[in-house]
């Protein structure tokens, strides 16, 4: 009987492997025919299952030697707050909610300009072999070190250079990240009274929730969130009424620059106001909405099983894409970013999560499995982007500076690429979702919202497209704004921490002059890049998203350096390939992208070439008198971007070189391979307590 079960189990796993292989072959070899999105779902799910069951379990058992008899920090340091042994599926939900951000939604949407194939393959392979491994190893390492942070581990395992680099990297990434996601929101809300009203309404709703939780029904967070969600839905209907009102619509119709200034002002307010009033209630609400929408989208894709309209590969793999410039290598990988591997996850895996894990083996589903689910979200975003007709996708995502500002010019350009689209089609689509126009809505959010609305609406028999479009926009903007306000606040704390060394009162987080000054500095830093993106004739995403991708992958490189160092200390060179192979790939991608963004002779790709081209036009007097000032600003911005990119590249090289020094020292016997793990203590937890 036992033997029969084992044979059956092996047959089931063989079936999963064959299904995944066939689906991968199907999507990789198909040319010229539309394929169903289920092929992507089966390829992803099958590969994830194989990776989880075999590769991750092998790492857990053989390399990490996870031991359920060993007490975790959650048990040894239990205090009921940070450290608390918790049911593994609750920790899984907590971890996933913490790592899920806008990156895996926006990145694949932008990378769809290469076709569905490159992004899909990297999302699947990158997650299984790199992203999940990074999250898992860092979670394991932190769990064995009393829940230490990535920065602390970098300092202890590699040296002070690694630790300092981690701090600088996080600050720099946050600046670029906040700017680029703010740009995504600005582009989604530009000239959209419906969207702007809905998002504006989330602020009084959050304040109402804050007051409700603080004074009227303290502690009733779920009850309050249900109330907030009902009000959010009401605000979407309210937005429709506003957009249809001749007197109210102009009050909520803004251009990109006005919206950018509003988002900057909002970031400052959210950073300076008490956290319970605006930030915390929005955070609760956005977490629940985020989880709900992810589940809804998965159910919608399985129910509708839409066909992909985008071809497997487009001609833009040669680097001439309208959404962003650059060839498939390295820019498909830089653009996908968080859907395959994200450095930020290492901060979560060495933050709250290791302090809640009750049994060491729980790190397997939480660390590795959590990232697999994040990767699946990226696959769903890819599906949502690719269900749109390619002509519509490019009309929405291509900046006016590339395809032309007039609708007729834009459709002519896009149709000439072999992706037919008409002004009538775009007008009907815009009217169907309650927007004045959908041309040049760069940033990824509007096209993702269109795809999601298409799937949600089709699930209900093709009704309420405009409601679902604005529901999707509300969902994207809600949690992007949550990251903006929380990120500005964190940046303010980091800055105050640094300023406190110069003048002690500046380090006090409750001293209002310090709060205001440091909030202004942080807001000014990301606000500068945001305004630069708004003014960019190529739409801003072309320069800012690659910068963000490079920065994010830099943090992942740091995490993989720490992980490799720990594996080298544990086993010598034997298993270092597990994290070193993804690291080598990541370094080649990041450094190639940085080199091309700085030094490419093509003006729409290289920052310096762009600056030089503009400077030459200025020197030759080919710039109209009224455009001289803005052109000088563009030149300065391009050079600034080149410097920022160079700083990222130098940081990558410094971290990698310092890590190689340590590995060579350990393997050559010059550095003692000491372990900073906490000693073994037997667990006293019994199964009932979990």
């Amino acid at each position, binding site marked *: 009987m036992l033997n029969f079960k084992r044979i059956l189990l092996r047959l089931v796993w063989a079936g999963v492997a064959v299904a995944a292989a066939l689906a991968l072959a199907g999507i990789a070899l198909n040319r010229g025919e539309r394929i169903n999105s289920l092929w992507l779902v089966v390829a992803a799910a099958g590969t994830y299952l194989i990776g989880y069951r075999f590769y991750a379990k092998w790492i857990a058992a053989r390399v990490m030697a996870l031991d359920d008899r060993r007490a975790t920090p959650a048990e040894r340091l239990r*205090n*009921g*707050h*940070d450290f*608390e042994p*918790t*049911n593994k*599926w*609750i920790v899984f*939900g*907590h971890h996933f*909610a*913490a*790592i*899920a*951000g*806008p*990156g895996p939604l926006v990145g694949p949407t932008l990378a769809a300009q290469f076709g569905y194939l490159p992004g899909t393959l990297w999302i699947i392979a990158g997650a299984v072999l790199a992203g999940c491994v990074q999250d898992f190893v860092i979670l394991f390492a932190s769990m064995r070190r009393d829940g230490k942070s990535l920065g602390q581990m970098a300092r202890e395992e590699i040296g002070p250079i690694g630790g300092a680099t981690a701090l600088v990297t*996080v600050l720099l*990434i*946050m600046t670029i*990240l906040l700017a680029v*996601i703010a740009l995504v929101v600005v582009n989604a809300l530009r000239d959209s009274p419906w969207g702007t009203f809905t998002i504006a309404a989330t602020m009084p709703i959050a304040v109402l929730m804050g007051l409700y*939780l*603080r*004074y009227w029904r*303290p*502690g009733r*967070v*779920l009850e309050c*969130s249900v109330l907030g969600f009902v009000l959010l839905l009401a605000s979407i209907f309210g937005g429709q009424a506003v957009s249809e009102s001749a007197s109210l619509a102009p009050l909520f119709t803004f251009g990109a620059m006005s919206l950018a200034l509003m988002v900057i002002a909002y970031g400052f307010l959210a950073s300076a106001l008490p*956290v*319970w009033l605006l*930030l*915390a209630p929005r*955070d*609760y609400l956005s*977490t*629940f909405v985020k*989880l709900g929408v992810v589940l809804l989208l998965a159910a919608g894709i399985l129910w509708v099983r839409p066909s992909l309209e985008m071809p497997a590969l487009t001609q833009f793999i040669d680097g001439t894409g309208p959404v962003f410039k650059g060839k498939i290598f390295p820019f498909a990988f830089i653009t996908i*970013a*968080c859907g395959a591997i*994200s450095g*930020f*996850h290492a*901060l*979560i895996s060495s*933050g*709250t999560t290791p302090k809640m894990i009750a049994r060491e083996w729980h790190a397997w589903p939480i660390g590795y499995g959590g990232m697999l689910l994040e990767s699946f979200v990226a696959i769903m975003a890819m599906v949502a982007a690719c269900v749109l007709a390619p002509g519509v996708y490019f009309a929405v995502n291509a900046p006016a500076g590339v395809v032309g500002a007039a609708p007729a010019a834009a459709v002519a350009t896009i149709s000439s690429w072999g992706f037919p689209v008409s002004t009538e089609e775009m007008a009907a689509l815009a009217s169907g979702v309650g927007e004045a126009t959908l041309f040049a809505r760069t940033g990824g959010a509007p096209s993702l919202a269109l795809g999601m609305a298409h799937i949600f609406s089709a699930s209900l028999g093709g009704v309420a497209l405009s409601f679902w479009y604005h529901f999707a926009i509300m969902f994207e903007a809600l949690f992007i704004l*949550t*990251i903006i306000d*929380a*990120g500005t*606040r*964190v940046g303010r*704390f980091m800055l105050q921490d640094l300023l406190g060394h110069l003048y002690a009162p500046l380090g006090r987080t409750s001293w209002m002059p310090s709060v205001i000054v440091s909030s202004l500095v942080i807001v000014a830093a990301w606000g500068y890049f945001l305004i630069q993106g708004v003014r960019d004739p190529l739409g801003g995403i072309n320069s800012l998203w690659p910068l*963000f991708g490079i920065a*994010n992958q830099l943090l992942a490189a740091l995490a993989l350096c720490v992980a490799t160092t720990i594996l080298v200390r544990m086993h010598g060179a034997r298993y270092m390939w597990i994290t070193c192979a993804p690291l080598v790939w990541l370094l080649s991608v990041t450094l190639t992208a940085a080199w091309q963004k700085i030094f490419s002779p093509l003006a729409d790709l290289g920052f310096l070439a762009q600056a030089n081209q503009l400077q030459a036009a200025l020197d030759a007097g080919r710039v109209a008198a009224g455009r001289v000032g803005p052109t000088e600003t563009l030149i300065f911005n391009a050079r600034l971007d080149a410097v920022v990119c160079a700083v990222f590249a130098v940081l990558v090289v410094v971290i990698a070189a310092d890590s190689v020094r340590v590995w060579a020292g350990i393997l050559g016997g010059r550095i003692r391979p000491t372990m900073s793990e906490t000693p073994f203590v037997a667990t006293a937890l019994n199964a009932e307590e979990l």
Partner: protein
Amino acid sequence: MTAARRAYQHVWRVSRRAGALAMAVLRELSDERAYARHLAICGRLHSAEEWRRFSDERLRSRFARAKCC
């Protein structure tokens, strides 16, 4: 008991457990479970003042960490 009834009871049990787990995840994400633990560990009773004290402390540490992208 018929096979259909047994299957129905099994599905009902699994659904209830899944629902309870989903609710527990939501309560963890909403800090309600953490608050209940706080009350139990400190031996205090729920009050508006106690919630504010707990919430202030919890939010201070939560919003000192960067959110994921």
